[in-house]
């Protein structure tokens, strides 16, 4: 009995220590973002602000030097279109790969997997040159179209779709339902958890993507929030820590909200995405 209690105490102490290690930087971020601007970095004992400066967030969003609110709108628009588009394109493909047989299916699926694992290193330069020659630079098209399909989402959804019993599709087929109808009315409604997971992953990927929007945009009005944050840091806030941290939180909070809303599906999603 005593050993059991000791074990639980030890486990919790370790967990809390580790939790502090993981959380401390975030806590610092929030506390500093609420300090008065243009103060020197607060020492640890003065971290809790005397007066809470919520207005820092509005100051960052609507600062005259940089259209941060526009960055925010850009990111929201791009994220919505990419998440929905990617969900549709990827779920169609996942349906084809998991529930239909056709010639060349496995070879094609392998091509998707290899592109996911190894493609990124060599494609950035040619994709940029292609997008440039299409005349897409500094447009929403450039920021959206490359994200409309994702091998990772296909892979993830395929794992889920493969677990749905075939009898359901067979029954619908006997009733004369088209294959698209089976996909849309049988398989998709049964895969809500999978679709939530895939949407969350594609949201994080597009919201926090840095490299591609950095290359594909140079016009300040077309920047996304993630790239805008680096511009902000390098030109306007490099020593103003409260403003910097307020800006960083503006970028992070939407991710945290989406994460908390979908995280109960997450363990399963990561697992299926990772193995087999």
């Amino acid at each position, binding site marked *: 009995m005593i050993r059991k209690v000791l074990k*639980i105490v030890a*486990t919790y102490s*370790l*967990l809390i220590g*580790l939790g502090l290690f*993981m959380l*401390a*930087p975030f806590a*610092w*971020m929030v506390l500093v973002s609420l300090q008065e601007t243009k103060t020197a*970095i607060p020492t*640890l004992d003065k971290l809790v602000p005397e007066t809470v400066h919520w207005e820092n967030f509005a100051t960052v969003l609507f600062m005259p030097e940089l259209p941060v609110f526009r960055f925010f709108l850009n990111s929201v628009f791009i994220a919505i279109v990419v998440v929905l588009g990617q969900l549709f*394109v*990827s779920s*169609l*493909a996942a*349906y*084809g790969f998991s529930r*239909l047989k*056709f*010639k060349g*299916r496995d070879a*094609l699926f392998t*091509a*998707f997997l290899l*592109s996911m*694992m*190894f493609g990124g*290193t*060599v*494609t*950035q*330069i*040619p994709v940029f040159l*292609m997008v440039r020659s299409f005349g897409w630079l500094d447009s929403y098209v450039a920021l959206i179209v*490359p994200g409309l*399909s994702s091998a990772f989402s*296909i892979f993830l959804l395929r794992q889920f779709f493969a677990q749905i019993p075939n009898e359901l599709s067979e029954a619908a087929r006997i009733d004369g339902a088209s*294959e698209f109808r089976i*996909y849309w009315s049988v398989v998709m409604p049964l895969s809500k958890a999978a679709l939530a997971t895939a949407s969350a992953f594609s949201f994080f990927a597009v919201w*926090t993507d*840095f490299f591609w929007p950095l290359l594909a945009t140079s016009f300040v009005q077309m920047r996304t929030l993630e790239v805008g*944050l*680096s511009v902000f*840091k390098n030109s306007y806030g490099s020593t103003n820590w409260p403003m910097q*941290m307020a800006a*960083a*939180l503006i*970028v*992070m909070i939407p*991710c945290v909200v*989406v*994460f*908390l809303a979908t*995280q109960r599906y*997450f*363990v399963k999603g*990561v*697992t299926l995405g990772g*193995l087999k």
Partner: protein
Amino acid sequence: MRGKVGWFFVAPATAHLLLFALVPIGYALWLSFHDWNLLKDSRPFVGLQNYSETLADSNFWNAMWNSARYAITGVPLGMIVALAVALLVNQKIRGMAVFRTLFYLPAISSGVAISMLWIYVFLPESGLINSIVKVFGFEGKTDFLNEVPFAMWALVFMSIWTGLGPRMVLFLAGLVVIDPSLYEAAELDGTSRWRSFWRITLPMLTPTTLFVLVTSTISAFQVFTPIYMMTKGGPMDSTDVVGYHIYNEAWRRFHVGSASAQSFLLLLAILVVAIIQYRLMKSRMEDAAA
């Protein structure tokens, strides 16, 4: 009939794969055989010159070495920490879900925001680490991101923190499927916990470990955002990793031909490392099965 329908379903994704992965790979290969400065119109065919020049360039090898150091230190350390944490949270006690969520948080956060945060952590004098060190009576003046041995270690340390969540979840998934009767049998035989970790847990986790190892290594070789935000490759090129090196070659010097050649050499390096890792783990798996 169903054969054709299948193609219809995968057609949009396949068109996308062609346009944004397969055609670009071919284009990159073409680029790597040409000398093209983006600011000029001429792009003469130069054969293997971009490759031979890259292989003779000590800056490129420095970048490769930096990436290798980053991966060789950060990946195993990150995996050991993640496995330890997975074992810790793989217990049925109250509030575990909260901790799992907490540990995952850095992984979904913006890379730029995280980098800004860690710039603070590593600052001299007022940074988090130096502030804590001062409490114990040290001077606390180390400028971690601007001093040679420290900058790379600072980035490695940060990567352990950001990578913890996904690795932990993958290990957790591997732990959950291990047959509990194996442990019960070991316990009946009087095997110690420590021994059954080495004899049961680790061998049974081999597929998971392999997957985590390969994917972590690939992403370690591609790290970009923290370098761009925190060190710009410095001090003295000690954190000029190959992903950042290629970025500068292509987008600062506009040498897209040689940058493409470098990206293929990086791809080759990643493939070789992944294959070696796969072989090693596979033979371990066969040993365990035998």
